[in-house]
């Protein structure tokens, strides 16, 4: 079997991971690849962790991604980036939003929200363990464009730099998937996310 690309998307229930994975699926499908998407959304609506695996290539067998196998992680919350980090392969890319959503055990004081997640990720990147680390405040980008719920679309803008598909395919996916009413906002959010990386480099 030829190499499959494995992308793990992690976030918190209600953050709209589903839209991001739908858009990416559209892009992949438009390029004639095989793909499998696996979602765990059992109690997602109730603020739990949400997890989506996307795998594509010429052939895809397993719909899941295991520890050490993700080529890219896209995390829409900092703690979730930290939680799923072991799923990244050596040299994999971490895309994460700097947003912080406290889970219940932290709210009640039973557990502590880990400190310095970003710094630790930066250390790993500096040590050459990560292929790249892209961290932006996706929520701020989305708010700036007018729709806080589109934060994941901003992250998708970063992801577009890491995959082989042309920018145009993402814009077409947005047009095909997002309802007319929200299209403009989502396009702007995607493009602003895309541009943050050009500014960083």
């Amino acid at each position, binding site marked *: 079997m030829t190499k499959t690309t494995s992308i793990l998307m992690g976030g918190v*229930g209600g953050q709209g991971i589903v839209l991001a994975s739908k858009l990416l699926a559209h892009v992949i499908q438009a390029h004639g690849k095989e*793909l499998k998407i696996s979602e765990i959304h059992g109690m997602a*609506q109730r603020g739990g962790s949400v997890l989506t695996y996307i795998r594509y290539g010429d052939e895809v*067998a*397993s719909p899941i991604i*295991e520890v050490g196998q993700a080529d890219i992680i896209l995390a829409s919350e900092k703690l*979730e980036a930290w939680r799923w980090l072991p799923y990244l*392969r050596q040299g994999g890319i971490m895309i994460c939003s700097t947003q912080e959503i406290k889970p*219940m055990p932290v709210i009640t004081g*039973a557990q502590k929200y880990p400190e310095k997640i970003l710094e630790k990720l930066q250390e790993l990147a500096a040590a050459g363990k990560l292929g790249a680390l892209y961290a932006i405040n996706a929520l701020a980008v989305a708010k700036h464009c007018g729709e806080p719920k589109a934060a994941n679309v901003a992250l998708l803008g970063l992801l577009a730099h890491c995959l082989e598909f042309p920018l145009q395919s993402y814009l077409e996916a947005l047009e095909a998937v997002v309802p007319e009413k929200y299209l403009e906002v989502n396009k702007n959010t995607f493009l602003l996310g895309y541009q943050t990386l050009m500014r960083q480099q």
Partner: protein
Amino acid sequence: MERKLMSGNEAIARGAYEAGVRFAAAYPGTPSTEVLEFAATYDEIHAQWAPNEKVALEEGIGAALAGSRALVAMKHVGLNVAADPLMTASYVGVNAGLVVVVADDPGMHSSQNEQDSRQYARFAKVPLIEPADSQEAKDFLKLAYEISEKFDTPVILRSSTRISHAQSLVILAGRHEVPIRPYEKNIAKRVMMPAFARPRHVAVEERLQKLAQYAEDTPLNMIEWRDTKIGVICAGISYQQVREALPEASILKLGLSYPLPQQLIREFAEVVEELYVVEELDPFFEEQIKAMGIKVRGKELFPMTGEIHPNLIAEKILGRPLAEKLEVPAWEEEPVPTRPPVLCPGCPHRSVFYVLKKLKLLVSGDIGCYTLGALPPLDAMDSVICMGASISAGLGYEKGNPELKGKIVSVIGDSTFFHSGLTGLMDVVYNQGSTLTIILDNRITAMTGHQDNPGTGYTLKGEPTVALEIGPICKALGVKRVREVDPYDLPALEAAIKEEVAAPEPSVIIARRACALLDKSPKTALNIDPEKCKVCNSCMRLGCPAIVKTEDKVTIDAALCVGCGVCVQVCKFNAIVKAGGEND
């Protein structure tokens, strides 16, 4: 050729459409729920929610006997509820085809147990079909109808979370219109009393022999010859995991996995050097293959619990993992906080558990969003078994230990009450119990994603219908003390619970308020006045995700708060006030 990205559940519904299915029924349950939701999008299929799985299957049996191809769907534990009709439907057979879709949940992503439903095929002596992706889910379902009609039997199509909730590309076909078969009365074949059932059992055993023969030749079962050093027998999602882990290995892929194709298995076993079975949960294939006298390795390598992933397969069979771990020392140092699901901000269930905890009552719980009332800081639940058990187990607590009398509260959701709470409540009356039953009527089946139920006034297809009223039902069951309370009104709720739990006869409180996620009215977030707040933590005991504690103060996250006002009633210092709806 156009291919559509579909989840296994969507593909099953598509398969039903293409197979000419006319009737579909289900009770929701993760991971099977979307099968019926998608089936309902086809005008050609009459799709409906049943109050529980037993009712759904009985409806399916009736529809199939009447002449329409029928589909019934449920999660694994739903098949326990529907087991009674299944066992005898096997004797009765069908007229038009009948398929029972059952979705297992290895790893318990969203379930109270991880039973292996394949056992039901053997138990009921009906064929079992297991697809390995969405394309197969659709195509195999169509074949299942042919098998059902050819062999005059209900068929079980077994999915699992990774099939039902994984999306892959599917080639669509058109609908094959199957006319309604003529109805003919046949008492001896369909009225199962001893004299008629005895010959039917003989027919079932003969049918099983014929199915075993069919299993040898069906395209559902096939050998993929690759390197013959390692041979693996597997089905469903395990096929994909084995392909991922052992791309070189030969595979006997079972699509019709009960009854087993013994000849095919022998052929495969003779050629390969090492034979393995990879199957999640029970050694269902392994035990049958070993009983054939064939040497095979399975559960000596793989766990009986949870999912079996490619890495483990590679480790156990090849002796090396598939992927190298990323070394992250800092990750191992401190535990990563878990993010358990929580009752939503404004959830009408919250205040009920707050009061139950405060009053230190024994809570016989049930299944739904409200099961989260068992988690900290509410901790207000003593047991949860299966749907409907709250009321009957509550009566058992009372009869089993007289000291508990007067402290027992059974808590049940509206959908769960319709599912299987009525008979328990009937028995509290009949056997003169005195438990309090609180029905958490949030006007919807929330847990599984907001499905309608007999109390909501709408059908699965969105058509208006009769909305059954819970209060009059309880009264009709013989409960004299029935009252309704708004769970946002904390003092009224507490007073009602105190009074009713002490009553020496059965009592019911209907805590009625719509699910907060469905209430679309404008919200004004609350605010904590730092001048008045003494950081006494009283409001923290509600376990509301909108109330956040930082080092030395408590604040309300205005983006999450829906202004339900329950915390206002808990605060002794009047520190919680309406804010001006700032949304940042």
